[in-house]
């Protein structure tokens, strides 16, 4: 085990996979000489050269479409989209290209392509640099979507994503980059895509979260514990494909569910989770599933306004109490 920051864990995964497989290459804005605006690709250009760690113009739409066809033709591209807020610029390539050809061409092509991006609010970056658009990418069949909360999962899941034969959207969070955690040593320690992690066991209410919201859920569990409520916190880790079995197991135990996502509420990821639970765990539910997500509005800049709209531990704890009451 090594104590690492989340950004360092990602950096290690990129380095190891690029060493392991010469067809892996990266491109994106400011990732080369500067090492990425969040320093995730620090030092990689020096180690692997301009050709494999490539700075690009500001051209998300073309970059994404190019990544898809590069993946089809023998390489394993890792594309960095600087902010999740810029995902809408990539959408044609994801919706109409990346996610369809493996199926349409009857498996003749694989598209081993990873799109890394980061989202989330809390630091005053304003409406165009603070969003969580998890639901938007999860809506597209044919894409895998992962959103790790810890350095260990960040590393293990990124390695799995790079080795995957399907397009994977890898969602990071700007407030997690500096968080630290123990990361298992070894080049072949992978975290499988599609498996949730039980962060805390509890008997009274299940809280399902991902990315930074896992930390909020853990804090909510501490608040609830003061009232004698034992919350079970499940870190989904992979948003799609969903680990339905872990969800079922937890709800069969607690009978109460709170679903948390930093994205918008309406048609949001929390809504999808809620619907899934309703459909598959109905007879185990002792109360309606509670959603905790972003209000349906632009994220304001001013601190008191931004803090008011972001989902947090207090809102999660309130939702859990409402479920249990």
């Amino acid at each position, binding site marked *: 085990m090594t104590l690492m920051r989340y950004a360092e864990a990602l950096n290690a995964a990129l380095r190891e996979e690029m060493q392991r497989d010469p067809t892996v290459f990266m491109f994106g804005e400011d990732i080369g*000489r*500067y090492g990425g605006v969040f320093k995730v690709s620090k030092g990689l250009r020096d180690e692997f050269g301009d050709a494999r760690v490539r700075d690009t113009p500001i051209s998300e739409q073309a970059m994404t479409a190019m990544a898809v066809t590069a993946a089809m033709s023998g390489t394993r591209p890792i594309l960095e989209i600087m902010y999740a807020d810029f995902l809408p610029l990539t959408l044609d390539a994801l919706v109409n290209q990346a996610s369809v050809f493996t199926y349409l061409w009857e498996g003749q092509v694989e598209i081993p392509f990873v799109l890394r991006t980061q989202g989330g609010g809390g630091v*005053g970056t304003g*409406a165009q*640099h603070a969003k969580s658009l998890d639901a938007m990418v999860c809506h597209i069949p044919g894409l895998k979507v992962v959103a790790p909360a810890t350095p260990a999962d960040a590393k293990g899941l990124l390695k799995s994503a790079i080795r995957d034969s399907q397009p994977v959207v890898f969602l990071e969070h700007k407030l997690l980059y500096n968080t630290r955690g123990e990361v298992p040593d070894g080049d072949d320690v992978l975290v499988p895509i599609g498996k949730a992690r039980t962060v805390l066991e509890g008997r009274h209410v299940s809280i399902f979260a991902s990315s930074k919201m896992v930390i909020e859920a853990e804090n909510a569990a501490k608040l609830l514990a003061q009232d004698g409520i034992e919350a079970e916190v499940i870190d989904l880790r992979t948003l799609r494909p969903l680990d339905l079995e872990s969800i079922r197991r937890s709800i069969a135990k607690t009978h109460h569910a709170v679903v948390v996502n930093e994205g918008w509420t309406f048609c949001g990821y929390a809504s999808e989770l809620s619907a899934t639970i309703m459909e598959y765990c109905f007879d185990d539910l002792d109360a309606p599933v509670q959603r905790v997500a972003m209000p349906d509005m632009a994220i304001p800049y001013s601190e*008191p306004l931004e803090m008011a709209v972001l989902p947090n531990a207090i809102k999660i704890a309130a939702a859990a109490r409402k479920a249990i009451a």
Partner: protein
Amino acid sequence: MKNTPSTDELKDMHHKMVVTRELEEVLGVYAKEGKTRGPIHRCDGQEAVGVGACAALRTDDYVCTTHRGHHVYVGKGLTAHGIVAEIFGRETGYCKGRGGHMLLGDVTTGMLGGNAIVGAGIPAATGMALSIQILKQDRVAMVVFGDGAAQTGICHEAMNMAGLWKLPVIFVLENNEYGLTVRHDVQSPVADLSIRAAGYAMPGEIVDGNDVEAVYRAVALASERARRGEGPSLIEAKTYRIKGFSTSDMGGYQSEEEMAPWLARDPIQRSAEKLVALVGADTVAAIEAAARAEVASAFETALSDPFPVFETHAPSAAYSEFTP
């Protein structure tokens, strides 16, 4: 055809450039002390572009700008107090704290927006020009955008339609040599982006972006042309970004040798020299003192202004089906 600024206009432009510079200097101090929130993108050394371009327009003309738009904000006539209050997230800011420094907008001055999506301002201004044409108005729309935005696909699409339909839009390409940390020559195979104008059947011109009068003249000509219904123009204002990308930029990629010649061509200094010859040193000093006093008072007032309080109101809940 009027394309020469009057002495009063020169004095006003000088005043606005000093306000912009001073505003950024003070913001820089607050940022260093950790008293600002989110990134601040400074346009030090680029003041002549935004101020000169806006000075050549009328109040009812539209302008769109970038995440680095303080010179356009001030140039189009926004007050220092309203800008500073917005940047500090106060209720008295132009957008009551909701937009912040990158996403500020003000309808009364036609300043329709800073925009933090690179390239988004280009179709935005083009759309306003389309509306102007349909309404048969004699207004123009202008966009100030960077060399980074020039590489987006939407830039091509918008310019093509502007040329095709002869829309009254002025494309001011503020070439400051850097798209975030990446130099222009790593982003584009050609040094002069203005040559692209030919592909859209519009005039393309290179001006000294550190000469406020040169920028004014070019935009004045382009606006006359647009008002006559002759369509869009592309003006490439060559300048240089002195202060890095933003307050979150760790730097290290702009060398001193690269920067030195640009520092020597500081737009405010050059404007001051020209004005001293015209109106005397005392008047220029008075203009500058007034500008600094205006900024100082703006900060003083804004910092004691109240923060907004979150409430679900019509614009925030317009599409919410459920009241929380």
